[in-house]
């Protein structure tokens, strides 16, 4: 017999709109307004999943996001999404759902054999059993165990759906739209406050949705919603779960829009994540009903009492046979009376000895009863009741066992900022432990279970929130609906007698039973945090919403301490599982982060440039004129520069305009070497240190006029240097009259390098005197061509005669094309980053690879540059004894000794004959093939530095199990006298 059926009338479903869906490929039908779970129950219910560890058959247990059993994989291929509670998945046309964790099917699951071995499969079983025989055996077993015990699988393909993120602000946020939340929103909005009401359900009303359509309770709800919807200052957000509360009254809201069939091609998002800052927050998050702990309490057909009511009133789904309501508190009588009013057969078993006659009127009630077992593995058929002493009371045929073990207020959000919930003995609940000044809570989350109490508290909270923000409007009054209110007064009973020692589950999703808690206690895992991690209790996708309190109450009983002494585990965001896509929003693929491009990018793209990511930049790596791979092209490009002339894009360099009467003094302080007396029209290479004497950056700064300098920085450190200069001017030396402005994007630049560089520029700028007399090494010329400003600085990174030419970014491509055309008779061609970086290694110039934030001025061999008489940033710390020790590493050159082998960046260096072990005596920072020396060369940091010049060392590359021999030499591999620079 099927356990559930659809009633011919009633409910909030739209019977005119049938919805077709599939479960494991089989066609099914439901109605608009159904959830996947309610549609499956309407079709008969029964087994919808297999449990995590024992593969026990499981049915729908709840009607909300707390559902531990009825989890499905929705969609397939790239859109496949696992572990979705069927109780929260709205039924949509064409929905393709699959059951999880059962093979070949959830109805007949071969792994159910695990139930036979249940005595073995207790907490810690896997860890204890699969530790041997070898130390790493767990690594071998784990994949198989994970396959047997697990939930759904995520798709490995990129998610084609669109997600959005947005930033929002409001005066008052009300979380939850039950009676208390509706009242709070009304009071705040009537007073004039801007209100957002966020509700995780598809519909507003909370527990009022379980009032019959057209009843007084339903009418109250409809009136409140209509008033809110008409107020322009109110935003109603349904299908929106408030996932987390963070600092600064900021919250994360996840809105689901699958019901709108969003089309990614039209840019429509299936989920929207809102970062919301609210001046005031009213938490009306309600409470989650607790299951009862009894033998075989996980059988399909055992359901929370409030959920059974929701299925009846909202979805017109009822048990096909008699129902048994088992409770330890008053709230379940609402379900029992509703069942009776619907003409269903119902018996109540109350664990309490005495119950208020007003509750029991008209119902068949067994008091002081205990539920000791149910029959029917794939669907409940009968239940057995006993007396408190265990003696037989009664057996009842039942297709639904609706249970209520009391309520757990949803204190998750109020606990996210670190406020621990407090135990309230009167309600037997954990309530919010306190509030920030701008927070308040009302309704069931505060233990206010009676309807009138919740509405009154909500109204006050909303009115107070608005008043605190200065809204003096009249909120008027709000009367509660005239319906019977049941409250939730009761006496906790944490466990039913279990004479046959059957499984009694706490955490249904993770298959944790009361015996596992007892075992954890026996083995010493007694704190709730240990209990959780040892048994995996509360660690499923439902995060123990239905299980945590029962488990810690049982642990408290075993430890003979009070529940507050046992305490709760920590509540952390998100409240329900959140797709990573929703957090990423549109920051995926090419929008993952912004890409910086040079003003020459388009030209390079069109003219054989091949790009490489360098920090945020896309830089031109090499040009196809020189070869079809970087490895071949850069050699040709190097040859071009060493023997003729090439031009390379250097727009990537950081460029800072430094102005002001104190600019010379400022630069003199930030650079280790002197800049105060740099003549106008001259450039100088400089190194900056951090306060701790580690090299921050190097670059060239040119004095354009008395009070104006043009600073260049490395590409990588441009942002850091800019912030550092601004920091010094605003916090350390406010008396200096200096302005710094980043002009990195405003100016483009190109390096013209090679023996024919001067000729190339003479062809580019005809009639201009570029002789060494007019433009000596480290000189600068500023002039205009057709009104376009040009800064021509004679400096060299490659070691050849070279110039850097700067011009505003809008004209950079024009100048580049003009230069290439004008100097074409010389055979000029462009060269890329790989050749640029290799040329500088031959010359022994350090760059980002060598300045890795571990090295000081002395480490990179530039200690002599520092001013002896002046102060500069990092001076004091530079003279720390360890940094000055003779065996401290410093920059050396390496030449490969064995032809046919390679030097590799990152290799670890050892003296000849030393054991190849540990961190070695240094490391290689930069490597290139030298076209001048016809061998591999490298820059490296080596303990003792050039004291070891001429020695043979070993370069180890453990990743490839490779060692090669190299000789320590000067890092200046070519033209040590600098003759080429001064021609």
């Amino acid at each position: 017999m099927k356990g559930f059926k659809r009633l011919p009338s009633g409910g909030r479903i739209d019977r005119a709109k049938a919805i077709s869906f599939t479960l494991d490929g089989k066609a099914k039908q439901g109605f608009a307004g159904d959830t996947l779970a309610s549609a499956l129950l309407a079709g008969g219910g029964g087994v919808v999943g297999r449990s995590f560890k024992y593969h026990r058959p499981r049915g729908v247990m709840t009607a909300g996001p707390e559902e531990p059993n009825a989890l499905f994989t929705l969609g397939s291929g790239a859109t496949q999404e696992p572990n979705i509670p069927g109780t929260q998945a709205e039924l949509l046309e064409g929905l393709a759902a699959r059951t999880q964790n059962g093979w070949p099917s959830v109805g007949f699951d071969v792994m159910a054999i695990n139930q036979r071995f249940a005595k073995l499969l207790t907490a810690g079983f896997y860890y204890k059993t699969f530790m041997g025989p070898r130390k790493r055996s767990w690594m071998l077993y784990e994949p198989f165990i994970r396959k047997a015990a697990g939930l759904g699988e995520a798709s490995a393909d990129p998610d084609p759906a669109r997600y959005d993120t947005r930033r929002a602000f409001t005066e008052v946020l009300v979380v939850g739209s039950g009676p208390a939340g509706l009242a709070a929103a009304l009071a705040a909005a009537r007073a004039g406050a801007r209100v957002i009401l966020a509700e995780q359900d598809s519909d507003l009303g909370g527990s009022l949705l379980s009032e019959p359509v057209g009843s007084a309770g339903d009418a109250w709800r409809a009136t409140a919603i209509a008033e809110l919807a008409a107020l322009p200052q109110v935003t109603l957000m349904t299908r929106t779960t408030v996932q987390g509360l963070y600092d600064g009254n900021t919250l994360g809201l996840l809105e689901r829009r699958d019901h709108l069939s969003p089309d990614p091609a039209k840019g429509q998002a299936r989920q929207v994540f809102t970062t919301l800052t609210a001046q005031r927050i009213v938490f009306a998050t309600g409470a989650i009903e607790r299951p009862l702990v009894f033998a075989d309490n996980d059988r399909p057909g055992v359901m929370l009492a409030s959920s059974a009511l929701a299925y009846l009133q909202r979805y017109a789904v009822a048990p096909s046979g008699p129902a048994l309501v088992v409770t330890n508190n008053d709230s379940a009588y609402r379900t029992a009376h509703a069942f009776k009013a619907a003409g269903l057969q119902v018996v109540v078993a109350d664990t309490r000895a005495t119950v208020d006659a007003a509750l029991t009127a008209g119902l068949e009630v067994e008091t002081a009863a205990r539920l000791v077992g149910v029959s029917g593995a794939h669907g409940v058929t009968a239940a057995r009741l006993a007396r408190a002493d265990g003696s037989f009371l009664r057996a009842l045929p039942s297709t639904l066992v609706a249970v209520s073990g009391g309520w757990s207020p949803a204190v998750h959000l109020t606990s996210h900022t670190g406020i621990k919930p407090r135990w309230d003995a009167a309600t037997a609940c954990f309530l919010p432990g306190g509030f920030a000044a701008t927070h308040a809570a009302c309704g069931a989350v505060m233990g206010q279970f009676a309807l009138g109490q919740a509405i009154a508290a909500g109204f006050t909270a909303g009115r107070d929130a608005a008043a605190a923000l200065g809204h003096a409007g009249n909120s008027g009054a709000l009367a509660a609906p005239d319906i019977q209110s049941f409250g939730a007064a009761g006496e906790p009973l944490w466990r039913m007698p279990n004479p046959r020692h059957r499984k009694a589950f706490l955490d249904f999703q993770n298959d944790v039973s009361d015996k596992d808690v007892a075992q954890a206690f026996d083995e010493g895992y007694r704190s709730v945090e240990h209990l959780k991690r040892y048994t995996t209790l509360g660690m499923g996708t439902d995060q123990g919403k239905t299980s945590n309190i029962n488990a810690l109450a049982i642990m408290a009983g075993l430890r003979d301490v009070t529940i507050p002494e046992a305490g709760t585990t920590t509540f952390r965001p998100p409240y329900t599982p959140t797709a990573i896509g929703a957090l990423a929003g549109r920051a995926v693929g090419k929008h993952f982060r912004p890409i910086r491009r040079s003003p020459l990018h388009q030209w390079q793209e069109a003219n054989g440039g091949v790009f490489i990511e360098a920090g945020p930049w896309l830089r031109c790596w090499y040009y196809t004129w020189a070869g079809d791979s970087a490895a071949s092209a850069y050699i040709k490009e190097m040859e071009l520069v060493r023997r003729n002339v090439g031009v390379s894009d250097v727009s990537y360099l950081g460029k800072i305009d430094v102005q002001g009467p104190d600019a010379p003094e400022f630069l003199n302080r930030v650079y280790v070497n002197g800049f105060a007396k740099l003549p106008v029209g001259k450039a100088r290479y400089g190194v900056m240190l951090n306060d701790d004497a580690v090299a921050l950056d190097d670059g060239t700064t040119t004095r354009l006029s008395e009070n104006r300098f043009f600073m260049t920085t490395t590409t990588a450190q441009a942002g850091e240097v800019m912030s550092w200069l601004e920091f010094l001017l605003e916090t350390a030396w406010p008396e200096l009259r200096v302005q710094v402005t980043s002009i990195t994007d405003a100016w483009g630049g190109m390096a013209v390098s090679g023996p024919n560089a001067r000729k190339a520029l003479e062809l580019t700028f005809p009639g201009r005197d570029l002789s060494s007399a007019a433009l000596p090494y480290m000189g600068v010329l500023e002039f205009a061509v057709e009104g376009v400003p040009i800064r021509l600085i004679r400096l060299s990174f490659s070691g050849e005669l070279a110039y850097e030419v700067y011009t505003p970014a809008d004209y950079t491509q024009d100048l580049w094309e003009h230069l290439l055309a004008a100097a074409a008779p010389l055979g000029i061609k462009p060269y890329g980053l790989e050749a640029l970086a290799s040329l500088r290694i031959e010359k022994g110039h350090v760059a980002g690879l060598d300045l890795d934030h571990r090295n000081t001025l002395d480490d990179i061999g530039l200690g002599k540059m520092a001013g002896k008489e002046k102060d500069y940033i990092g001076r004091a710390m530079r003279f720390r004894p360890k940094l000055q020790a003779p065996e401290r590493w410093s920059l050396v050159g390496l030449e490969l000794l064995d032809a046919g082998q390679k030097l590799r960046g990152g290799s670890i260096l050892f003296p000849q004959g030393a054991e190849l072990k540990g961190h070695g005596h240094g490391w290689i920072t930069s490597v290139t093939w030298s076209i001048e020396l016809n061998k591999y060369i490298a820059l490296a940091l080596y303990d003792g530095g050039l004291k070891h010049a001429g020695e043979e060392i070993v370069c180890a590359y453990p990743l490839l199990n490779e060692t090669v021999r190299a000789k320590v030499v000067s890092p200046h591999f070519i033209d040590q006298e600098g003759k080429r620079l001064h021609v």
Partner: protein
Amino acid sequence: MLRIPCPWCGERDYNEFRYGGDADKVRPPFGKPAVEGADLKAWHDQVFVFDNPKGPHKEYWQHVQGCRHWLVLERNTATNQVLQAWPAREFALARVKP
């Protein structure tokens, strides 16, 4: 999400800013001492020794994605409550000209 009241731009999300360290620390005076090494201890403390106060604390932040000014923010390190902000330059000038 901290909200930082930038003295120039108004209240903005903290991710428009970069953190810049303890603003109560006063840098050792600029200038080479007569004997090299005489200021090593002062700089050692500046670079490596930090208090870890609980409660209100002044720290530097820069509005890197806004006006680029540096500011001094007072924040309660225990509650993460943002208390007040001032232009960093005002603090620095007060130190230069007491």
